[in-house]
């Protein structure tokens, strides 16, 4: 073995040991307890799967996934996007007409990152999906859940920006594929000169009440666009009334990073992080591509990215354990049992 391999990790993976690993365990446990209290059941997706079913969804990400060949010669892909892996898993497990199902996960993704990329620890995600959800209220449920997680993590300054992929499709869905792709990028990067007259709609950011004002200034807007805007504003207003006034912003330049989104889309941003902390939305057609025609809404949150921002409070970390008092093993076992029963930790 050469020294370079001894000290270096391959790009796209991470090493977490001792106190850092303990912190992650505690944090994950707390988030999982929250999921449980919301009725979300855990799922674990495979670490690798056949490449073929995922190929159409990878887009620009195709360059960064790790592919391998199994003993039968089939091309495999390591888990690079949990939403996709979950869709395939649930597509196989659930039967058509299944009852609505709430699921959650805490897992790592594996993909290549550029050498200069300093954003380590970005591979660990938690997430939730509400499969078989149809009602607009279900969209609100996942946003309320995300808000609860942000509160649990103590990220008071994090903001959730909600937009709509359906709004974008209503405006530009009939354009040729290449033009649509370019418009999607222009809207999300706010290059308004490339968007045309509808820039005045998609540039809106602010409270739900501003959408009503926006509609008044744009009387010639098509009915389908108006309907999408009204629906989005209605949902946002309801969330504002439920305590998310400071957390939520309607942001019509949010149009979804992935092509599988079909309706509501959102991202959460946290000061100090260079990229979105959480990403989610509604994807009503994704599971159908994996054999189950069932609408779904959900999100993933890059927990690894936020770990250093979270104050876990006083912790009885295993590294703080002291040797139990006593002159013999029997005495130490006895005192250690007592200390542990009191919630402390002790070594023998």
């Amino acid at each position, binding site marked *: 073995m050469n020294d370079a391999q001894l000290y270096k990790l391959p790009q796209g993976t991470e090493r977490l040991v001792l106190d850092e690993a303990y912190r992650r365990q505690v944090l994950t446990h707390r988030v999982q307890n929250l999921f449980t209290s919301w009725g979300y059941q855990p799922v674990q997706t495979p670490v690798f799967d056949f490449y073929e079913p995922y190929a159409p969804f990878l887009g620009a990400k195709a360059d960064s996934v790790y592919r391998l060949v199994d003993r039968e010669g089939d091309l495999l892909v390591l888990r690079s996007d949990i939403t996709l892996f979950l869709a395939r898993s649930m597509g196989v497990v659930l039967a058509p007409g299944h009852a609505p199902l709430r699921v959650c996960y805490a897992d790592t993704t594996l993909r290549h990152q550029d050498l200069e990329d300093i954003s380590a620890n970005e591979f660990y995600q938690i997430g939730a999906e509400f499969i078989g959800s149809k009602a607009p209220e279900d969209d609100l449920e996942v946003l309320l859940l995300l808000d609860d997680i942000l509160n649990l993590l103590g990220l008071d300054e994090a903001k959730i920006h909600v937009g709509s992929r359906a709004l974008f499709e209503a405006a530009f869905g009939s354009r040729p594929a290449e033009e649509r792709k370019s418009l999607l990028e222009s809207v999300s990067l706010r290059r308004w000169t490339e968007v045309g007259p509808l820039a005045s709609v998609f540039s809106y950011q602010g409270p739900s009440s501003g959408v009503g004002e926006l509609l008044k200034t744009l009387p010639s807007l098509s009915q389908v666009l108006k309907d999408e805007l009204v629906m989005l504003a209605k949902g946002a207003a309801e969330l504002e009334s439920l305590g998310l006034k400071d957390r939520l*912003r309607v942001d019509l330049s949010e149009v979804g990073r992935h092509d599988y989104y079909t309706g509501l889309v959102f991202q959460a941003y946290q000061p100090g992080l260079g990229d979105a902390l959480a990403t989610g939305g509604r994807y009503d057609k994704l599971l159908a591509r994996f054999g189950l025609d069932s609408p779904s809404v959900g999100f993933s949150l890059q927990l690894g990215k936020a770990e250093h921002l979270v104050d876990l409070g006083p912790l009885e970390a295993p590294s703080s354990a002291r040797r139990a008092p006593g002159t013999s093993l029997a005495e130490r076992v006895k005192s250690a049992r007592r200390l542990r029963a009191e919630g402390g930790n002790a070594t023998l």
Partner: protein
Amino acid sequence: MNREPLTLVLPKGRLFDQVQEFFGSRGLRFDFTDRKLTALDQTGTLKVILVKNADLPTYVHHGIAGLGICGDDVVYESGHEFTHLMPFAFGGTRMALAARRDHVRQEAPGHLTIATKFTRFTRDYFHGLGIPVKIIRLDGSVELAPVLGLAPYIVDLVETGSTLKANGLEVLETLKTIGVNLFANTSYFKLRYQEIGRLVDTLKN
């Protein structure tokens, strides 16, 4: 409401002088004293940080600074995507393909050997046209490459063309017009869009 000043990274060099003058004309004055690389503008709106041109997108991409100003060429080479805020009228230039004035095309058709600092742009541009290119990366004095015989062609930024002329080179084709823009880390923009919007209004008026 966040009371911390907005952070803006600027490239050292000639573009910095133009940006400083432009911002000054809009009431946002900042000076760098004692060889410091950070300064606060007089209104307390902006914390300005000076970095090397090519490093600028890296600082903004990782959210170390929220805003940046540099040419399209630098952003393109970085491969990062940012929220576009506004273009500036100054600092514009062009990316051009150049060769010796007396050059005779010797390579097989559909193949070019090009020396350049702008490897990503050059590769994408010619591959986009279906032309395979062999790229030799250089970090400066690219004009020397055809003169010394390293590569028959170069892709470089050209303003007046006087450096090319002095080295016996000529522009064969302008590949792209390069502008200077104000841009933001997307996450930073989302969190502080109101203050950034006010800054852009100040700069546009």
